[in-house]
């Protein structure tokens, strides 16, 4: 009996031993890590390599050159597409986060705890339905004979159908702001849920009004959620392909459309790779600058 207990104790100690923990952890995580290494790191490295190569019809010339970057940065069309993608994604992010905040606040602070799940479920349902069909339906809503125009004409508010709401960047912003709504609501909601409610009571007890409490306590404490929402919306929208193609018209096309054209239509993989790298770098730099400014602002606040 005693011997067994000692053995069991020893086995437990061995299990808690840091090195074996590390070994077990690495062993267990390795299939997933290996998969990500092979199918994410290696492909991204390949794209980077391609951006320094050139293609002559079907032959890839593997001599190192910066010509692709020179061409990409000199060509006004590419520059404009990258700039437009960033501006549209910025507008989408602003609209989505500003519209989402009150909803997250409402669900977190004004909905009874047992009904919160239901509200979150209601908000996420439209997000899980076919993205393609949703974007197409926005085309139906915003179109010449669409829902908006026919109802406004029916009400006698306008004579001619509005043309500024489809086949331009406005339409892309509206459609993407709809598509990414849950991505903004959920992180803000989680951040608001984490706020200790007694802090708000303390603020009220110390003589702050409801509104000043919101601006001085609730809003600053929810900043991490807002920051997460900004990045989660901004990064994928810069590279969106479907929405600009379906509702953007010629002036609403974005960088992803050009990347697709380079790869699948013009058969110029190196230029497609170069534009991909430039898009990634732009997104990365903007995200890092955003995070740095945020960190600085938070430090100043403290």
């Amino acid at each position, binding site marked *: 009996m005693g011997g067994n207990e000692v053995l*069991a104790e020893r086995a*437990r100690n061995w299990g808690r031993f840091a090195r074996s*923990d*590390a070994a*077990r*952890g*690495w062993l*267990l*995580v390795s299939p*997933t*890590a290996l*998969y*990500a290494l092979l*199918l*994410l790191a290696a492909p991204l490295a*390949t*794209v980077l390599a391609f951006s320094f190569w050139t293609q002559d019809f079907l032959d890839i010339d593997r001599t190192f050159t910066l010509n692709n970057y020179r061409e990409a940065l000199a060509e006004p069309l590419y520059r404009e597409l990258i700039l437009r993608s960033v501006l549209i994604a910025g507008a989408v992010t602003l609209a989505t986060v500003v519209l989402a905040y009150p909803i997250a*606040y*409402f669900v977190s602070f*004004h909905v009874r705890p047992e009904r*919160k799940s239901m509200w*979150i479920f*209601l*908000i996420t*349902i*439209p997000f*899980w*339905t*076919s*993205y393609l*069909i*949703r974007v*197409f*339906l926005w085309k*139906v*809503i915003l179109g010449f*004979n669409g829902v908006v125009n026919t*109802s406004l004409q029916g009400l006698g508010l306008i004579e001619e159908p509005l043309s500024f709401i489809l086949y331009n960047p406005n339409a892309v912003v509206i459609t993407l702001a*709809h598509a990414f*709504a849950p991505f903004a609501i959920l992180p803000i*909601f*989680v951040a608001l*849920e984490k706020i200790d409610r007694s802090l708000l009571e303390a603020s009220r007890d110390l003589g702050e009004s409801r509104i000043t409490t919101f601006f001085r306590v609730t809003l600053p404490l929810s900043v991490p959620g807002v920051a997460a929402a900004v*990045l*989660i919306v901004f*990064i*994928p929208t*810069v*590279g*969106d*392909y479907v929405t600009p193609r*379906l509702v953007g018209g010629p002036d609403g096309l974005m960088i*992803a459309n050009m990347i697709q054209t380079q*790869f*699948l239509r013009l058969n110029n993989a190196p230029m*497609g790779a170069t534009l*991909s790298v430039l*898009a*990634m770098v732009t*997104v990365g730099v903007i995200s890092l600058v955003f995070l740095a400014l945020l960190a600085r602002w938070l430090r100043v606040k403290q």
Partner: protein
Amino acid sequence: MKGRGLYVYALAYLIFLYAPIVLLPIFAFNDSTVIAFPLSGFTTQWFAEIPETPALIDSVQTSLVIAATTAILSTGLGICAARAGAKYDFPGKRPVLGFIMLPLVLPEIIVAVSLLVVLLGLGLSLSSWTVILGHTLICTPFCIAILNSAFGNLDPSLEEASFDLGETRFTTFRLVTLPLVMPGIISSLLIAFTISLDEFIIAFFLTGTEPTLPVYLWGQLRFPQKIPVVMALGTILVASSVLILAVAEYFRCRGIARTGGKDTGGFL
């Protein structure tokens, strides 16, 4: 007072969220090939045309096979990572897990393009398998996010009790851990399935001769006379997504109740 104003705003916002979805059944049952108002009449003709379109049926089958395979692969990979993250501390844990989660914040077009370049470079021909590889990559982070809460809520004393009662590491996992996290696994499978079923851009780049359903739909959107059938199909898809998600949510809540944890809400 303030709560009332927010409530009205919340309802208005829900109308905005549901606006496109509500139109779907309206046009699916509308007796006209023109997708615009005013409506002309009621018909179920578009639903009847679905089974008579072989290309559509094929693409649905391709998508279902891809989605099911993706769900199993990404949930398997997700279990490894979530379990390792919840149970063990090892050097480099945060960077490794962060790297695995990277596809969440990478534009999908980049993932699609980079995989395409590599697969073509290796001389592999595009097929359903190449789509599965891409989908597994982007679904795994979602699976990990769901499974993290399942493994995180697990009380370690239950496993220790099992060891003390003489079970081995493997039998403990099978008899104690697995049943406790099973609801999380099921909801992870369903989420990965749903994401894969709906994913367009990676499938668009990596699909071979057999298009997935979104790729097929993309082609159909160019032909106005085909659109009512797409609407009918969309209606069916919406109804089934809602059903799948309701089931997933049910299992997730039950899992939380089973491990005695607190509901932290939502899939993310």
